[in-house]
């Protein structure tokens, strides 16, 4: 009967919302500070930020090799 399956579905929605409502939330200021700190700590190891020198660039156009 469609009525009771709607009820079952609705109960699941309520159950899910109860679960999601129950979590602890951290202040955005704290969360933002932590994300910033992660970026700062890893900035020097981020090749796309620091740049890649041509001698160590794995994607640089290959020099042609020839058999002599």
């Amino acid at each position, binding site marked *: 009967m469609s009525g009771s399956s709607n009820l079952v579905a*609705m109960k699941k*929605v309520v159950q899910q919302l109860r679960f999601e409502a129950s979590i602890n939330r951290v202040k955005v200021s704290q969360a*933002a500070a932590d994300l910033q700190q*992660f970026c700062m700590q890893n900035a020097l190891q981020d090749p*796309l*930020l620091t740049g*890649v020198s041509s001698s160590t*660039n794995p*994607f*640089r156009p290959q020099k042609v090799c020839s058999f002599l």
Partner: protein
Amino acid sequence: MAAEKAEMDALKKECDGLRAQIEAARKAVNDNTMSGAAGGVASVGRVQLKLRKTLKGHLAKIYAMHWSADSRQMVSASQDGKLLVWDCFTGNKLVAVPLKSAWVMSVAFAPSGNLVASGGLDNICTVYNIKAASPKTLRELDAHTGYLSCCRFLSDSEIITASGDTTCCLWDLETGKQKIMFTNHIGDCMSLALSPDMNTFISGACDSLAKLWDVRDGACKQTFSGHTSDINAIAFFPSGNAVITGSDDCSCKMYDLRSDQEVIGYQDTSLNAGVTSLALSSSGRLIFAGYDDFNCHIWDSLKGEKVGVLSGHDNRVSCTGVPDDGMGVCTGSWDSFLKLWN
């Protein structure tokens, strides 16, 4: 009948109450903005990456690509009915996998490098062993009732899939059977991303929601709203504490998992194209987002500013990926080419 209606009304009221409670709880911790907090952070300046290689070989639109864990090999999928495995250092094609169905939408590399998986409008996720003398079909994972939009390996024995049937699924590759179904979205699931610790994953769907799931117990732990159209792309911030989404509403958003809310949006009035794909640099500072306007735009994740663009494709950028070592960005396009930038 009347009793049922009364119960339904009571449940609806409880739903509304809970939604209001969640919004109030989110507001209560919303004591600052990300961009405000990033006031003291140095700007990254203009990010100008160079095109290093154009990978030619596909004969039709490229729909997906995925880097190998070795940061050297990469697999791409095209509706020419092939998967190509590339050595991105030399630009050589290493393996070509012919597909039973050309309508491919997703491709994934297993962390071991031994397997790749793909799927699309056939509703099936097919897993191939690419270390065999010629690519061998290992498993056909056939249970979704909608298209396969995304797949990601946990290991050589487990894979997670996202489908147009609104569910995601964890499969056991030894048996070929579904282990866990993740059901809660009310629209086609379009993409998924694994957390760095692989205990959770996030999915983005056409219901404009992003959901965080527990891999082991199937529970939907958190739901993030705010987008006004389909979420096509999703990725974890490398610390695992935030999630970035890209949508047909032409914006990207960052949601912090611990604050349970959107903390910053990435949009520009001049950008009127949907976001198809996204990837982050290794520190999380740069977001590379592929758009329908044929470009990949680069955003400063902390300040919310556009800091660069990768231009060169002649059609929609459909996929974007940064390898684990962070050494470059790969963009794939409907123009049939893949480009490597750094």
